[in-house]
């Protein structure tokens, strides 16, 4: 197993380099101008001066190598320095990937966005799992029952209705009509006591439910089909023949085996938690990583787009590996060596 992991990690290096090149080149070649958002009252000569101050005057390969160096060498060094409070070399003079819109280091921007993205999107993912697994299992055990039919209907609706629609409907119903929950997420809110925790819960309810239901729809379908497949296996008949109670058959035998593919699906979906749910973040103004990306795309802030996209790529490659390894760990029949 460890040899397999080592081999996969080695393979990841050229993969990521190629991805970084494609991401950088695609965005660099795209016809976009960071000064396009400025008012037209700013004359072209000034725009040119601004572009040059952003480093756009240099040739493509220099900018690419500079970005790679800043992202792969300087930023990890900064991270190490901050974690251990030490200084490695000339840390003040080290160049960092800077956002064009805010002129601040992109990595700092991402770090400031991660907490809200992780709490909201992360919790919604957990909620989704908590809903999806029981619903999926129960639907499979009572195949074609009313519960199953209703579950199928709800998950289909949940899966097909986009979050920008459910989000707006929830806001209109629960914020405008009923006035139960705030429609705008306060990212500066700090949880210090029970009361502030309640405020935090209230402002998280709607975004978490929107995202949670959307993810749950997909996962519960997966769980249902996986359980169904296992229910017809010989080992289930054996267990029943031994006289194991139905409850035991399902919870001990079937569930454990049918969760193996579900776990890998969950692991593969995890990078999206870091990426944030772009649309939901926008609707509820949870200004997280997803909103950072959208704003940067709209504003022509190429360094931010490049960096965030590349971080997503790294996460996806990493979690693919995690999913594969998990599969091997959970299912003894699978051996990679």
């Amino acid at each position: 197993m460890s040899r397999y992991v080592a081999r996969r990690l080695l393979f990841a290096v050229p993969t990521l380099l190629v991805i970084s090149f494609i991401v950088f080149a695609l965005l660099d070649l795209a016809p976009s101008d960071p000064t396009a958002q400025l008012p037209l009252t700013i004359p072209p000569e000034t725009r040119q001066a601004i572009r040059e101050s952003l480093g756009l005057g240099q040739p493509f390969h220099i900018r690419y190598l500079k970005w790679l160096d800043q992202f792969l060498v300087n930023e990890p060094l900064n991270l190490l320095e901050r974690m251990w409070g030490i200084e490695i070399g000339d840390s003040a003079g080290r160049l960092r990937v800077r956002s064009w819109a805010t002129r601040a280091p992109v990595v700092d921007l991402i770090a400031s966005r991660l907490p809200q993205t992780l709490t909201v999107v992360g919790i919604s993912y957990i909620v989704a799992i908590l809903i999806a697994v029981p619903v999926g299992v129960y639907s499979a055990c009572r195949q074609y029952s009313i519960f199953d039919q209703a579950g199928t209907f709800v998950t289909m609706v949940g899966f097909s209705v986009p979050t920008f629609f459910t989000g707006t409907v929830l806001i209109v119903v629960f914020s405008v009509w009923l006035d139960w929950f705030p429609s705008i997420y306060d990212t500066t809110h700090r949880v210090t006591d029970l009361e502030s925790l309640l405020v935090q819960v209230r402002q998280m309810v709607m975004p978490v439910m929107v995202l949670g239901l959307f993810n749950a729809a997909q996962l519960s379908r997966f769980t249902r089909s996986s359980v169904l497949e296992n229910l017809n296996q010989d080992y289930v008949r054996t267990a029943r023949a031994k006289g194991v109670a139905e409850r035991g058959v399902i919870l001990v035998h079937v569930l454990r085996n049918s969760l193996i593919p579900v776990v890998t699906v969950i692991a593969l979906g995890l990078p999206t938690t870091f990426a944030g749910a772009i649309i939901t973040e926008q609707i509820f103004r949870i200004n997280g990583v997803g909103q950072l990306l959208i704003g940067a795309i709209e504003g022509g802030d190429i360094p931010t787009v490049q960096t965030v996209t590349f971080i997503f790529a790294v996460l996806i490659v990493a979690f693919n590996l995690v999913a594969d390894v998990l599969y091997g760990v959970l299912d003894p029949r699978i051996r990679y060596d």
Partner: protein
Amino acid sequence: MSRLRGLILTTTILVVFATAAYAQRGADGELRMLYWQAPSVLNPFLSGGTKDIHAAAFVIEPLARYDDNANMVPALAAEIPTVENGGVAADLKSVTWKLRKGVTWSDGTPFTAADVAFTAAYCMHPDGGCNAAPRFENVAAVEAVDDHTVRISFKVAMPFPYGPFVGSTCPVIQKKQFEGCLGAKAPECTAQNFGPIGTGAFKVKEFRPNDVVRYEMNERYRNPDQPAFASVLVKGGGDAVSAARAVLETGEFDYAWNLQVEPEILAAMEKAGKGKVVSAFGTLVERLIVQLTNPDPALGDKRSTYQDGKNPHPFLSDPAVRRALSLAIDRNILVEAGYGQAGRVTCNILPAPPAYASTANDWCKTQDVAAANKLLDEAGWVRGSDGIRARDGVRLSILYQTSTNSVRQGTQALIKQMWRQIGVETELKNISASVFFGSDPASPDTYQKFYADIQMYANQFNGTDPQAYMQGWLCKEIPGPDNQWIGNNMPRYCDAEYEKLAAELAKTAGIEKRAAIAKRLNDMLMDYGALIPLVHRGEVGAHALSLGGVRINAWDALQWNINEWHRRK
């Protein structure tokens, strides 16, 4: 009786207390504002986006600002320098500002002329990428005469010397804080750019780029009973519709900025009775630019270039066609469908300030399809079997481009129908704003290249003086390959008369005389039909009914009088 007296007494006490509370600094709690485009940086010199200029205007101030009627009012200056009070030199080549005395920065250090001179040095540095740099054009030197006097000298006579340090786009920053941030270092000063020290009513408490800004009142603000609010929250993100909802329907916020929302949606939300929609009109005009040169792809390098007038457009060079296109448009419908309170019909490219607005072109205010058809008939443009007019094998077929934006696409569709009535065929095209307004010389889709027959966008000028704006239609401003497609003269208009009059404007002092010349310049452009103005666009916002003191301002940042905002009791 005694109960009544008691009631009166209580009311009186309440009123007294309420007034007292109003006059007390920080008594009104938190002001909550929504900017759906969130502020990215609090140094307006490095951004130029309206949202960033507004976010900075809470904190840093210019020497003078414009009020909501376009009058200049002193901010950090003691008075507005004029020729009469000796502040502006008789030869118009220098201006001397007297600064307000006793002003301190929020960190306690005194505000002096050295800060003003430093700000000029900061913005005029060639490597700084300062986007207020055009304000300092023609500035020879900015020097501190003494602690409270600054002299700005110009290279040429400036009949309107109020470019530098007037309005929120050009405020004064603190020398002590920004000293290490000159030139190429400017963008690296993240702490300074995110938390400028200012003289304004508020100071920055917390800034999360593209998300939230928190301000708290500046205890050292020069008016002891202001601001009424103890803190301000500016939240960003989302879209304009939900921002309007948060103020007008749920009442979670006090002010929502820039509500480019379909008019009927806003009107429906306003009925909830929690807030009020407000608008202000500056100089922003949504206009059609008429391509006067030939954009035919077959011309290769010469496409859309002026060539000393030897490359005329096949049909838009005919004045009758240009006039007919304008006559055929019902501008009232465009306003109603796309702008509501945020727009009004205009026939001028220079619609404001009021003294500068011409009335000579008001014929365009009413649509006249019959007259337009008659003009085209007389000019020899005959309808073919498909209803499209042609003359000598040239069909009136227009490629009409603009940036991607739902209101603009709606306007495009309406105008296409209106032109169809006079036998003009229109093909619509929209281009992403970051490409259209970008200036990549390699892209064929920029508004400077103008590879189309008609294009539409909005433009305006800073402040109240139109000189630089009107100079945009000089021959030398025509974009082309020899100047890397840089220039403001998109229609490729070139007229010796216009040049002469524009040069006269540059030497004339006195508001009335300047206004007369500016009006004539506007009328020349309108008579010629180089541009077809459509809608005078305003700025729209919404505030809660409980918020007092808001005077939405198209000439300066919304926050120009933030020190006067208060909670209505």
